[in-house]
């Protein structure tokens, strides 16, 4: 035995090692230090600004001067939300968000299922690339691109013409509500662009949920007499539901709050985001803008509460 050898490792010394030792002895200290920055961010900057925004909705506004009176707190602004014109905006936005969410879920599911079950290795990387690729380019550029695609002189009309289906398209555009002068100025156009832009946010959580469903559960269901449809309905869908709900939270809330897509592609009727934009900008009605922005928060709260009651998170 040499004199230098000891029970402890000689090279584990120095000031930083001392810090490691301290954290090793007091693991909670490390957790505390790691949590301070995010908690400050969430608490002060995020929640703080949200509260400041909500406060705005309770201030009164002088109808003649248009000045905000910070001394008077009132619920009158919320009453204004229920005026027919404003209620229309809310209902229109919610219906659009629901349609977009439903369509995204239906389209995303087979893609996510393929990716989770059948795609391996290099092809899986390709899948992620294909899903994420649209997110790499600017959101504005994509929307303008869609405006061109959907325009009367656009490629979609051209394709319909080549297929001698222009009549069908015209008939569709003649329908009330979903129709319009051309696809790019109809609700259908707005809907298509919303579905396109939010699709990755639906595919990825659904795929992650399906990835965690063991293949042998499908075998077991089939073994017990389940046709493929029954297996989907009773095993795969319930187990994928938390992922679909997670995706729908994205598509639903992003649609509720967006003000650019309906501005560029769609009829001139307002959505919630546009109303907020208009009221805080040109109209200078900050309290009503704030009240409008509370609407998506309340709707999302209700949505999550219902999803939780329906057992959407039981399989988590």
């Amino acid at each position: 035995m040499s004199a230098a050898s000891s029970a402890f490792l000689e090279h584990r010394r120095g000031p930083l090692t001392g810090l490691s030792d301290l954290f090793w002895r007091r693991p909670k200290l490390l957790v505390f230090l790691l949590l301070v920055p995010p908690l400050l961010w969430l608490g002060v900057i995020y929640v703080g600004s949200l509260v400041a925004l909500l406060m705005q909705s309770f201030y009164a506004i002088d109808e003649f001067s248009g000045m905000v009176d910070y001394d008077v707190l009132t619920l009158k602004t919320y009453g204004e939300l229920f005026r027919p014109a404003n209620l229309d905006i809310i209902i229109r936005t919610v219906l659009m968000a629901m349609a977009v969410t439903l369509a995204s879920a239906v389209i995303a599911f087979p893609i996510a299922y393929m990716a989770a079950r059948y795609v391996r290795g290099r092809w899986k990387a390709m899948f992620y690339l294909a899903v994420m690729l649209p997110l790499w380019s600017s959101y504005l550029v994509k929307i303008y691109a869609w405006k061109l695609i959907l325009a009367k002189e656009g490629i979609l009309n051209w394709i319909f013409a080549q297929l001698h289906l222009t009549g069908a398209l015209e008939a569709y555009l003649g329908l009330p509500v979903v129709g319009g002068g051309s696809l790019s100025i109809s609700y259908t156009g707005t809907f298509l662009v919303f579905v396109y832009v939010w699709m990755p946010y639906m595919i990825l959580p659904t795929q992650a949920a399906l990835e965690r469903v063991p293949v042998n559960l499908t075998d077991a269901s089939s073994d017990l007499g389940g046709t493929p449809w029954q297996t989907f309905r009773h095993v795969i869908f319930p187990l994928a539901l938390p992922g679909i709900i997670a995706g729908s939270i994205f598509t639903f809330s992003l649609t509720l709050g967006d003000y650019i897509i309906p501005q560029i592609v769609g009829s001139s009727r307002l959505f919630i985001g546009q109303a907020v934009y208009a009221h805080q900008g040109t109209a200078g009605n900050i309290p009503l803008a704030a009240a409008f922005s509370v609407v998506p928060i309340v709707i999302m709260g209700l949505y999550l509460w219902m999803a939780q009651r329906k057992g959407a998170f039981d399989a988590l």
Partner: protein
Amino acid sequence: MTTAVSLKAITRRFGEVLALDAIDLDIAEGEFFAMLGPSGSGKTTCLRVIAGFEQPSSGELSIFGQRAEGVPPYKRNVNTVFQDYALFPHLNVIDNVAYSLMLRKVPVAERYSQAEAVLDMVKLAGYGMRRPGQLSGGQRQRVALARALVNQPKVLLLDEPLGALDLKLREQMQEELKSLQKRLGITFIFVTHDQGEAMSMADRIAVFNLGKIMQVGTPEEIYLKPASRFVADFVGSSNVLPPDFVARTTGKASWASLRPEAITVTAGAGQPDLTGTVVARNYLGATTRITVDLGGQRLHAVLPSGAGVPLEGSVVTVDFDPSALHRMDDTP
């Protein structure tokens, strides 16, 4: 006797790999049949072909006389107990068991009373409201069994059903499975890599290796009269003796197997070919297993434990009755 499952020249390819190589097998109704083999030997693929999860690349599969190639699993009156149980995590125990009844649209009250009866049979009465995640491994195994039996299948397939259980529980479940099978009279086909399990439970065993069946027979036949070196080695840890050794000790050259308990050992040197050194000594309780090195050829012997067992390093002479030697042909 009716043939429950019949395989004729069943072959299953996965790309270049031959998972099943022209398997011929007949399993009788009411039989407790074991498919034994090391991992990758094709036994599980064979089970999956019978269940319908895999389609044979060629060959004929009949279940109770009816051709079953191309018939999906949900149309076969065959149920499976999966290796890791494959219980539905979002359903509680009773709904797991009643799953197949639910699919067949059996009325709710009848569905639950049947499921409860099967749970009672596997000694899990009163566990219906729990989630699979709240059960122990042994309990989950019973739920999987109940779920597969509630349908009263013609054939029950078990894929390494006891693999994940600890020894004590495994032995208990072996007995229970055996008595359950006797009581129900259902054909059980179970896959295992544990030769002890296959021996103690099965009426007949098929030994698989490299996609082929090496031997089919009763546990006794397989143990006492292995058809090949592989079977002798895999089942029952017999001594596999090469032709030159057999020629020197018995006069006639051929491969042979010799069970360790058929060997006797006396202290001191004797006939040179049968004299060697004890190189290992493993105490097993009632018996002790020793390894004797006879000039390069190692022999295992199992002796009753006690003062008579030679110590490690001591020189001994081994002896055995030539009739205990089971000669084998050249099949590896």
